[in-house]
């Protein structure tokens, strides 16, 4: 793959993407249009995140890729391999050691630092899309801060179901201005978005980049009497006994037995190495 430029994209394209990233950082939560390129992986499989990572990586970086919180899911493996080949950067599965982390659907459990960049893969960047399919309309609504429709949707949820029936991709307001789609992370992760690291969001097919600078105010939309609640399965992790991490549910047999394990595989591994043992931790280690 030495025929390709560092991190695959040519320098002109990377400059174009960096300009979009800088604009995104300057206007937090605003969706910046960019001339997304056709990547050698399908649209919808992280081409936006891959382009943002390609424009962000330097040869000195250490790169981590997670999908559903895990480093070993097939698409995470595929993207990590792509950058190992085209950029030759060091890769890691350890959250603390990574300088750039590309993610799909999760924010790592370990707190990120000012020296880190979190790159999200975004399928539909427009939080208003399912309320109004037209881009021409939603751009106007953002310009005028006309977010009433979103509040009506949340209100209708409460009136019909007694609760806000959005469990992932839960809309947030960034820096008191733009309503933003946090990408399809579970709402459990929303409070983590006020963080020390830079957060960049890339939507390749939809040709949009947006960003949240460090320590920026990010508020999940709610009502005073129905406050936002970050929820997760009401169990500890069955491998590492963590009570504070987001859990995946695994079906064990056809008799209805389940186990719950950390979706963040690195977090779970580091806890087990530190001696924490969950309900089924002994069996799994055996």
């Amino acid at each position, binding site marked *: 793959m030495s025929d390709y430029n560092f991190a695959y994209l040519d320098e002109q394209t990377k400059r174009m993407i960096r300009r979009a990233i800088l604009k995104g950082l300057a206007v937090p939560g605003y969706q910046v*249009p960019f001339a997304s390129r*056709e990547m050698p992986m*399908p649209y919808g499989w992280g081409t936006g995140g891959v382009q943002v990572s390609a424009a962000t990586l330097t040869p000195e970086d250490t790169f981590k890729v997670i*999908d559903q919180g895990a480093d070993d899911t097939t698409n995470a493996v595929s993207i990590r391999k792509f950058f190992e080949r085209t950029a030759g950067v060091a890769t890691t599965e350890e959250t603390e050691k990574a300088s750039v982390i590309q993610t799909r659907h999760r924010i790592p459990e370990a707190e990120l630092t000012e020296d880190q960049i979190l790159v999200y893969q975004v399928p539909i960047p427009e939080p208003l899309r399912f309320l109004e399919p037209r881009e021409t309309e939603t751009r106007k609504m953002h310009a005028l801060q006309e977010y009433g429709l979103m509040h009506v949707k949340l209100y209708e949820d409460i009136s019909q179901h007694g609760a806000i029936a959005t*469990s992932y991709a839960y809309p947030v307001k960034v820096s008191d201005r733009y309503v933003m789609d946090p990408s399809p992370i579970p709402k459990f992760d929303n409070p983590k978005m006020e963080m020390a690291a830079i957060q960049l969001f890339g939507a390749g097919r939809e040709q949009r980049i947006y960003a949240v600078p460090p320590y920026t105010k990010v508020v999940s939309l709610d009502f005073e009497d129905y406050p936002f609640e970050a929820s997760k399965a009401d169990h500890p992790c069955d491998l590492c006994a963590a009570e504070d991490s987001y859990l995946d549910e695994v079906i064990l047999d056809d008799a209805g037995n389940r186990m719950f394990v950390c979706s963040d595989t690195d977090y779970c591994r580091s806890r087990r190495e530190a001696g924490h043992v969950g309900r089924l931790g002994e069996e799994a280690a055996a």
Partner: protein
Amino acid sequence: MYVAVKGGERAIDNAHAWLAEERRGDTSVAELSLAQIREQLALAVNRVMAEGSLFDPDLAALAIKQSRGDLIEAIFLIRAYRTTLPRFGYTLPVETGAMACDRRISATFKDAPGGQVLGPTFDYTHRLLDFKLAAEGEAVEAPTSAPRTEPTPHITEFLQGEDIIEREPSSDAQPGDLTREPMAFPADRSVRLQSLTRGDEGFILGMAYSTQRGYARNHAFVGELRIGTVAVEMEIPELGFAIEIGEVELTECETVNQFKGSKTVPPQFTRGYGLVFGQSERKSIAMALVDRALRWKELGEDNLGAAAQDEEFVLSHSDNIQATGFLEHIKLPHYVDFQSELELVRKLRREAAEAVEQMAAKEAAE
């Protein structure tokens, strides 16, 4: 017992190896050469070049071979390759009026300068399976004659002479390029046409068909359909003039559509335009119909709410590489999101059941 899903990397490598074996198929059957695909599956090659936006029959043949004949996959391979190519510059606009036509027909005039030339068409074949082809038939030689030397002007020029068809405004403005600038709405006609010519043949066909069946109906006559090769010229700065750097095969379709006129424009004919790489007749006619339907605003026609009139709808969904990528991505793991939905639905059901119980208890107490 729970086993962590490790070994994704090895699984991927093994899947790729299996794919390569399946691609080759039964090794006792001779392997396809790229030349065989290029020469004998030429219309598939044409479609891959048109929707891949790259005129290179050999690369298109390679893509078809690599994709096991999945043309959308082949188009994807070409697109991904295309974006990595350096751009040396832009050619001059091609002169389709000077096309060396293999085929040229008009549905609006019985005869016209340049004549009606059927060319290599399926049109009047009876669709009967030809079992001779199954038994490695002899090469067929078509009768030949001297090529026509007279010029083949565009049919619409004759209508223009009478001033009965709209004039295309001439412009030296740089056309848009959606591979370099993000799509924005409203899109100008050059970007719309670029999007349509790259768009999925099936999607454009369906959109065009919907206009024929009454969703924003605008009856189209095929003023002209021509297929042939045109010279590609480029200005070389060091030389100071344009030289021919090659030729490409194109299909061009111009439709002539009725127009009742508006407050500002007297009744006249209007145009739809289709231009596609290779012999891509169905696609170019469909493109012309959709182009015409999308022009309702500039012509002062009514918005009938039809899908084919809706620029944002048509252009946002015509690209099969975008569509197939997003469609197929739902195969990827979504268990984090699904888990959050599971928790939510369980909670809502629990609350609903509790409400029913409370109701029953209350009724019993009364």
